């Protein structure tokens, strides 16, 4: 225990922000930055892929289906290597490990989010789309104004748990030399040489604290969404017990 406290005293800052401000930002800050950037960019791409997947036009459904199946069908680490060698060739210039990792996470997470969004859309009653269309709204207008707001609201907890996975997945950035939390821990271990258990216990504890607290938030959100779905989406309006429960809900 004293070892752990000693390590935290000496290297705590390295774990949090890397060599910053004397060197590049790293550690937990970069881990968090990759996860947030990854999920923020993956989300719109995932929605687009989902729309492609359910599109009646082969031009859209085929490419999105291929991307989703391929990205979900290979290990993440393979995708990372692939991006690592492919991106510099495709862009014609060196690509940083950070960018490579974010790009990989975006593709990977977007494929998972796509399937979540697709399930959310297909889980809504068919009458919602029909009602929108019969009022004269186009397919995309109905998607944007009627279907997606409902589907995405129901999916908020699932999306947050994807964010938690993403945080854990950033640790794989270590293999292509991204200066993130796992990388920092490994640096410390190499410096100390004799304290691997203590160093990696700290590493595990940091990931666990972050992910577990987010999991608790997810559970809370899940309860909220379930409760609202069961009654009405009230958005601050005083709750009135519905007199009739609709069969389609």
């Amino acid at each position: 225990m004293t070892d752990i406290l000693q390590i935290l005293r000496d290297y705590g800052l390295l774990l949090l922000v890397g060599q910053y401000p004397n060197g590049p930002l790293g550690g937990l800050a970069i881990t968090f930055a990759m996860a947030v950037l990854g999920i923020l960019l993956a989300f719109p791409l995932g929605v687009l892929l989902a729309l492609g997947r359910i599109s009646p036009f082969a031009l859209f459904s085929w490419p999105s289906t291929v991307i989703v199946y391929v990205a979900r069908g290979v290990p993440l680490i393979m995708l990372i290597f692939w991006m690592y060698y492919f991106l510099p060739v495709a862009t014609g210039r060196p690509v940083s490990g950070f960018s490579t990792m974010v790009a990989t996470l975006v593709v990977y997470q977007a494929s998972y989010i796509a399937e979540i969004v697709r399930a959310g859309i297909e889980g809504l009653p068919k009458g919602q789309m029909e009602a929108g269309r019969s009022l004269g709204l186009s397919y995309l207008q109905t998607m944007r104004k009627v279907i997606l707001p409902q589907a995405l609201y129901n999916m908020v907890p699932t999306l947050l748990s994807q964010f938690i996975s993403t945080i854990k997945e950033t640790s794989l950035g270590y293999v292509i030399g991204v200066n993130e939390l796992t990388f920092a821990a490994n640096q410390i271990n190499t410096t100390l040489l004799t304290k691997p258990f203590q160093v990696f216990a700290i590493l595990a504890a940091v990931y666990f604290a972050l992910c577990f607290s987010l999991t608790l938030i997810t559970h809370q959100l899940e309860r909220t969404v379930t409760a609202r779905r069961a009654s009405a989406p009230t958005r601050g309006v005083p709750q009135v017990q519905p007199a009739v429960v609709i069969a389609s809900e």
Partner: protein
Amino acid sequence: MNTMNHASAASPLISFEGVNKWYGDYHALADINASVGKGEVVVICGPSGSGKSTLIRTVNRLEPIQKGRICFDGQDIHARTVDVNKFRSHIGFVFQSFNLFPHLTVLENIMLAPIQVLRREKTMARERAMALLNRVGLAAKGDAYAGQLSGGQQQRVAIARALAMDPPAMLFDEPTSALDPEMVGEVLQVMQSLVRDGMSMMCVTHEMNFAREVADSVWFMDEGRIIETGTPDEFFARPQSARAQKFLTDLRSH
């Protein structure tokens, strides 16, 4: 087959010419020839699975057809030049299960299409929506959500939502079938007020009193065909076909 109605004689608003539809091998609609005149109210009845809902859903292209022609206001609705969204905005459709948008308030439900499709100003759309809510007797419910309303109230909002597009015709697909009995009357009243204002209407319903009071003609369907048409008086007093006689007997025995 002819609707035998004075209103439809001049120029029909909706006409079916040899309409056929299959679901795989199942012949859902068979050789439908009929028309609805401007201002005419047609009630479609028949046993379940007879194709009533399918027929009414073909009129605004919610269901495609494989053969024949459907014209609205003289225009083939499947013509390539027809903008399906614009066309649909001219026909109000009311569903059995209301299909209000649960994430929007009652007012937002009504304002959505006028703003998105007709590009109305928000304030104008709101004013009109309030007037329509008033008309269906729900002026106080503008800020409520669908889940907070009773079934009858939801269906009245759904009617107001359809009316917001000022459609010359309305289609009702069993509008009262999902309602508790005590709520049927309030919805039928709203529909009757539309009839008084001269709205053209096709209505699939089992409410035979409604048919008797407001319909100009009744179409009786069975197994995907219209097998009998006539004025409500003719149809209810002297049904011609054995199947219509049986249907009416079954209905009365409830």
